[in-house]
């Protein structure tokens, strides 16, 4: 598959929209022979910091002195690139005591299955050098309860809500995707393809190109909202998985989920976790994630959302430079609940210092 064959067009109207109101947007409706990305690249080639020739965002040009933090994901423009990730931000409302959720670009609900899940037998957490291993087991209240939570949370904020869709098999994935596709309060769906699959000996769809393709296609054919597919780093060739997801109709790729790791207890000579392996996250994984984001972003046409140890404004800009259109913050939200406020400030300061007027200027502009 050649990435360049699937360039997407986007109407001027969608591009300038600051907020997505959850209107049904069939993938096909915004696909075509557009060459926006190419034009954009030509405008900026080798000229970071130079005056822009073209002006793809005429409305924003008027706000000259202000840094433009907006993040263009093609199917939605977020007010900024900061999206707290699934599983590290509860259901959003837990963070209301700390800051106004309206400051965020978007936020992702904790991953959801159809039925309530108790989660894994403790221990569920083990701290490592600049990171942590977790084995929570996607504990959650089930889809019906999440619907009520989303109705409640959406009343408090206009920030786009993303639902992280889980499933023990393809049927459950589809059912969950459809349930939340039907909710006007939900802006986007994120498909968590790292769930152990009951029909594949516990292997997750993310570990198999064909399964990823089949599942993404199934969801895209039966839902209307833009679909982000979240990749696992625990594969030998993440680019081919990303391209499978893209070919099957994914509107964006988010990466990476946690890296599988092992913690052992020297005293009793046993693994710390009952499931033996657990997911590593936090600043420790940032360089690993950054590499994978760069590799995927240079091959895909659809926007990439970078995830992995992002804790500072500088980290955010580094991921954008590596090709991400937006980012998700994870572990830092547990460690420092007000991190989003700080990170947004840091982005603004850095943009001023480095004379970056808008994030598109540096997106994918890593000089090799």
């Amino acid at each position, binding site marked *: 598959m050649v990435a360049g064959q699937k360039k997407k067009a986007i109407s001027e109207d969608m591009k300038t929209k600051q907020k997505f109101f959850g209107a049904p947007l069939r993938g096909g409706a915004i696909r075509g022979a557009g060459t926006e990305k190419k034009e954009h690249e030509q405008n900026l080639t080798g000229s970071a910091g130079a005056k822009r020739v073209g002006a793809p965002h005429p409305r924003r040009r008027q706000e000259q002195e202000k840094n433009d933090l907006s993040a263009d994901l093609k199917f939605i423009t977020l007010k900024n690139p900061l999206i707290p990730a699934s599983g590290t931000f509860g259901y959003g409302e*837990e963070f209301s005591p700390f800051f106004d959720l309206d400051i965020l670009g978007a936020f992702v609900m904790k991953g959801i299955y159809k039925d309530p899940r108790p989660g894994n037998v403790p221990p*569920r957490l083990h701290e490592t050098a*600049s990171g*942590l291993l977790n084995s929570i087991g996607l504990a959650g209240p089930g889809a019906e309860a999440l619907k009520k939570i989303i109705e409640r949370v959406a009343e408090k904020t206009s920030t786009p809500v993303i639902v992280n869709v889980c499933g023990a098999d393809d049927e459950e994935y589809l059912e969950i995707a459809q349930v939340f596709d039907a909710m006007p309060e939900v802006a986007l769906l994120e498909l968590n393809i790292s769930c152990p699959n009951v029909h594949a000996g516990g292997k997750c769809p993310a570990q198999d190109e064909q399964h990823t393709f089949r599942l993404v296609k199934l969801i895209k054919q039966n839902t209307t909202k833009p679909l982000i597919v979240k990749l696992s780093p625990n594969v030998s060739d993440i680019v081919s998985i990303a391209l499978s997801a893209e070919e099957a109709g994914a509107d964006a790729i988010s990466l990476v989920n946690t890296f599988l790791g092992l913690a052992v207890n020297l005293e009793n000579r046993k693994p710390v976790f009952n499931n033996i392996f657990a997911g590593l996250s936090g600043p420790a994984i940032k360089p690993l994630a950054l590499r994978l984001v760069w590799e995927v972003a240079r091959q895909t046409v659809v926007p990439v959302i970078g995830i992995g140890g992002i804790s500072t404004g500088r980290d955010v800009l580094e991921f954008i430079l590596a090709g991400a259109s937006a980012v998700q913050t994870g572990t830092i939200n547990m*460690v420092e609940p007000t991190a989003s406020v700080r990170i947004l400030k840091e982005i603004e300061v850095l943009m001023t210092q480095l004379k970056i007027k808008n994030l598109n200027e540096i997106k994918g502009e890593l000089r090799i």
Partner: protein
Amino acid sequence: MKEEKCKVSENINIKGKYYSMKIETAYIAKKSRPGNFVMAAVSTASDPLLKRPFGIFRAAPPFIWLYYEVVGKGTELLSQKKKGDFLTLLGPLGNSFPGLENKNILLVAGGRGIAPLFYAAEDYVSRNNLFLIYGAKSAADLNLLDKLEALNMTGTYFYTDDGSAGKKGFVTTDIREIIETQKIDLTISCGPEAMFKSLNGELKGLDVENYASLEAIMGCGFGICYSCAVKSAAGDYKKVCADGPVFRLEDIEW
């Protein structure tokens, strides 16, 4: 609940691995109730990454006190803080002990579990008949005795595993007799898991209400990471940080 940059007013080594830290914190000190805890950022770097939970030992606005034992890297770093150093706290967190009047209350502390119970004792002592059973491994782990004395509780009972201070034995050694003779209405306990296990066994069948303040390794401290789960007697998981840390003793599976 707020993330607050605070100032260390004093950090005193009480004895061996045990420290008492006085922290200036306008918001947390004012809002905290006995039983609440704070998450303390022991490092400003990314290692160790997680904040550490500590039951509040005392509060008198604008100060709170922590009483802690150095058990690992996090508490080691905390013990190195000096007067004037900044310390970011998240709090107050969790639920609190029940409000009580005119009751015969028995506090049961194991080791560093004395910290939140001291805060409760200060609150309860004037309006209730207050009793304390306090046990630890050895004399080196049994602290704050002068401060506890100053509270003038109705009765105090001290134990060490090795008999190096107080009576040789455990907090459960005489507990049934104390409950009976002092006509105890309820117990409030805090200590290690093994203590709760034997306590739960000893108290079974007695006509007393039992509250327990649990200790757990935590990720966030405010209910979003689901790391500090404990299994309830009903079979589901409870979050120590957000559903607790204070539970009915019999509501937890021991």
